[in-house]
Structure formats: C-alpha cells, structure tokens
C-alpha cells in the first residue's frame, strides 16, 4: 500500500499559490495582448485567494474565506472596468496590442 500523507500540508497550497502568482506576473510581462495581460492579473488575484483559503484552513478560522469573497467582488468590478476600457481602446485603435499604446512617454 502506498503511503500517502493523510492531509495536504498547507505549504503545498502556498507553493501552488506562489507558482500561480508567478505565472500570472510573467503573463503580465510577456504577453502583448491587453486582454491576456488582464487575465494574467486575475490569475494573480486568484492565486492570492488560494493562499487566503489555505491559511484560513490552517488556522481553522473563517475570516480568510470571507476575505476571498471581498477579493472576488473587487476583481469582478475591476474586470468590468478593464474590459470596458479595452473595448474602447480596440474601437479607437483596432488593436489590443499593448505595445502599440505608447504615445505617452518620456
């Protein structure tokens, strides 16, 4: 019989969360499409959510999970605003390539 650990240690969640956060951050820096960048940011936020839930479970308390609700609501609002702005950008420039958006500089 294989000897599985009886619980998933909190560290595992945290490492996964950190990896997801890192992937999200890399996505923001490497992808050119504003939409994809935005998705990457959402990935970062959700990675943090995972951390919150993991910590809450670790402490045996609920507050971490409540925080996740707040974060999700905030993220939803951010998504709505972000999509609106990206659509606006697309309508005026026919592109969502973020590298094209560099008039303001210096």
């Amino acid at each position, binding site marked *: 019989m294989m000897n599985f650990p009886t619980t998933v240690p909190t560290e595992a969640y945290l490492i996964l969360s950190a990896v997801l956060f890192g992937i999200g951050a890399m996505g923001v820096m490497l992808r050119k499409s504003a939409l994809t960048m935005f998705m990457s940011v959402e990935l970062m936020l959700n990675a943090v959510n995972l951390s919150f839930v993991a910590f809450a479970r670790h402490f045996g308390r*609920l507050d971490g999970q409540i925080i996740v609700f707040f974060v999700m609501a905030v993220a939803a609002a951010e998504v*709505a605003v972000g999509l609106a702005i990206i659509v606006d950008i697309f309508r005026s420039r026919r592109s969502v390539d973020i590298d094209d958006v560099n008039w303001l500089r210096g």
Partner: protein
Amino acid sequence: MWWEVPCQVPAEVQRENTRVAFDYVPILIQILVAFAIAIGVIVISNFVGSKRPTAAKLAPYECGMTPVGQAWRRFPIKFFLTAMLFVLFDVEVIFFVPWTVILRHLRVGGTDYVLFALGEMAVFAGFLLLGYVYVWKKRALEWEA
C-alpha cells in the same frame, strides 16, 4: 468577534477532513486513466491510420458547406456589455451565500439578530437594484438598439 470563534465543524466531518487527501486518490487515478486513454487513442490513430490528405479533407468542416470568411469574427459590442453586466451581478450574488448559511444561527448571547440581518441584506439588494435600474435606464439591456 465572530471570526475568532473556530469554525463549528461537526466531529464526523472533521474526522473525514483528516482523511481528505487519501479519499481523493481514486479520483486522481481515474483522471489519470481518462487522460491516458484520450491521449493514447489520438496518438495511436496517428500511427496506425492511413494518411491521404486532400484539399477537401483539410478544409474546416462546416456541415458540408464551403467555409466563408474569417474564422475570427468580431462580436457586436453588445456581447461584451452583456458579459460585463453578467459578471458583475453574478459575483455580487456570492455575498448571499454566506449570509444564507449563517442567517438562522445569528443568535449571540440570547439576542436574536435575524431580522437585522434580513434588513442588512435588503440594503445590499437595494444597492444592487439601484445598479439594475441604472443599467436599465441607460438602455444597456435593450438588445435591438
């Protein structure tokens, strides 16, 4: 404070919780098997099957019709707008969930706060309704515009 009370989890659930990872192992194996079969079939058919590509075969399948135009089409802005509104109202609903769970147990030191909690949710819903009215009046819900 409410959150400092450790979660009131029933004893049997707690016991199960301690075995949670072990319980998931069969599911994990099942998933692995499923993936293996799916990938295996594709790979094997690639090796075993005969390949005689023709133009008609390589063309995208469109119910027997000749494909027309670009596969990537722009959607009307309406879709985006609707999607955004959906996301917003959808996510707001998550605040109802913990509320429903806790509503009947809102009794601290013999005092009953159920009606108060009901009122609170009414305020929250009121704000959502305000947003709905706003969206309505701005004609964001009119499909034919």
